């Protein structure tokens, strides 16, 4: 069974690789459709990744633009040694890192005055399931807010590994490829990132009265 799963994964990877190479070839030929396809495939995951790493929609938008600019300009140098996805994610991670470094140098002294209403979205717009009950909706909001806040407080190195694994859903090998580190380092970072998150969430829950919403039969 395990062998068949492995074969299936290998087959899927091979198909993806051939799709990637075809897409890259089309990009090099300047096909308009290829540019559109690339955007359609990767703009959402790259934006999510940047947003989770930076926790700021405006910075995330800047990073996404920089990422695609670099992708378009360097697609000629893409040799197919890694998958297109990990290559793009690697660029995104580096750009997010640069953005964060720039932010700590400059932006933390600034006070924004512009209205961000254009990009602002209500939380309801971002929920996957719009048909849930108001109770679930509020509970989801609380959980998500708590997790998001905890995510911003952990070390950015561990955060990148956890985000790539649990939110972007990359495999350990892909994460190692994206972060350009060994598999052992990836395992360590994911473990330490999750433990740090658990610790942060534990602190948060201890500081607030616990509420358990468990279904119970009336006595």
């Amino acid at each position: 069974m395990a062998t068949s799963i492995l074969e299936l994964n290998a087959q899927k990877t091979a198909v993806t690789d051939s799709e990637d190479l075809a897409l890259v070839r089309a990009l090099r030929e300047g096909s308009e459709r290829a540019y559109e396809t690339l955007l359609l495939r990767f703009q959402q995951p790259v934006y999510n990744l940047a947003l989770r790493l930076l926790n700021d929609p405006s910075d995330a938008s800047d990073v996404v633009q920089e990422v695609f600019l670099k992708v378009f300009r360097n697609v000629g140098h893409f040799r197919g040694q890694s998958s297109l996805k990990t290559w793009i994610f690697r660029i995104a991670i580096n750009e997010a890192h640069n953005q964060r470094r720039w932010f700590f140098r400059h932006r933390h002294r600034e006070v924004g005055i512009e209205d961000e209403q254009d990009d602002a979205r209500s939380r309801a717009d971002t929920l996957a399931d719009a048909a849930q009950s108001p109770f679930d909706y509020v509970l989801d909001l609380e959980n998500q807010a708590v997790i998001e806040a905890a995510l911003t407080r952990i070390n950015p190195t561990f955060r990148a590994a956890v985000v790539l694994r649990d939110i972007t859903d990359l495999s350990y090998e892909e994460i190692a490829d994206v972060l350009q580190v060994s598999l052992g380092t990836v395992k360590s970072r994911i473990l330490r990132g999750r433990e740090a998150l658990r610790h942060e969430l534990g602190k948060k829950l201890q500081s607030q009265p616990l509420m358990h919403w468990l279904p119970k039969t009336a006595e």
Partner: protein
Amino acid sequence: MSCQTVLNSLSEFLDHRVSGDERTRVTAHLAECRECAAHLRDLSELRNGLKNMPQPAVPERLRTQLQVLASHERARWNATKTLPLALRTWAVDIKLAADNLMRPLAVPLAGGLVSALLLFALLVPTLGSRPSVLNDVPTGFYTAATLVEAAPPDISNDEAIVELHVDSKGQATDYSVQRGQVSPAMQADLTQMMFFARFTPATWFGQPTNGKVLVSFRRINYVVRG
């Protein structure tokens, strides 16, 4: 299997990266150890929470910006695919850069040039040599007062340089001795001379004004022999 060992492998266990005997041992430990089982439950809930986090949609503005970016980059890429196209693109780029550089300067440069030419045209008539006119009074300058006529004074033995003050009507009004000694006799001579002398008054922009005239008195002895 110790709790620490299990805790270190829980993250991978959760991701189904632990297999074989080790997985069996971890599972057995979790069945016995409530703390490690609770730890695994926490991690599992945490991972589910992260997986179920909403995926914020890409803002519409960003989508548009990316499409514009893709369009520009595609045009740029297509323009550099062959050498003639690349050369043409570079030529256009250089021309555009030059235009962008010169356009802000064009209006000030043209305005300055036209102004300079206009001023030069206005000044040209004044630069040429004027025909000299006799007895013409220069109007743009100061002219000093001059002695026109004076009665020969009865000069004593004194030698002196005297500055005469001449008013705008050409009359000497006062004097001051600049050098030498003036005896009482010579003072009388000077007063007399001032009374009868005629001066051309000094002018300033063509108008008569007060001025000064230096007059030197020196006795010259002629010795005639023979």
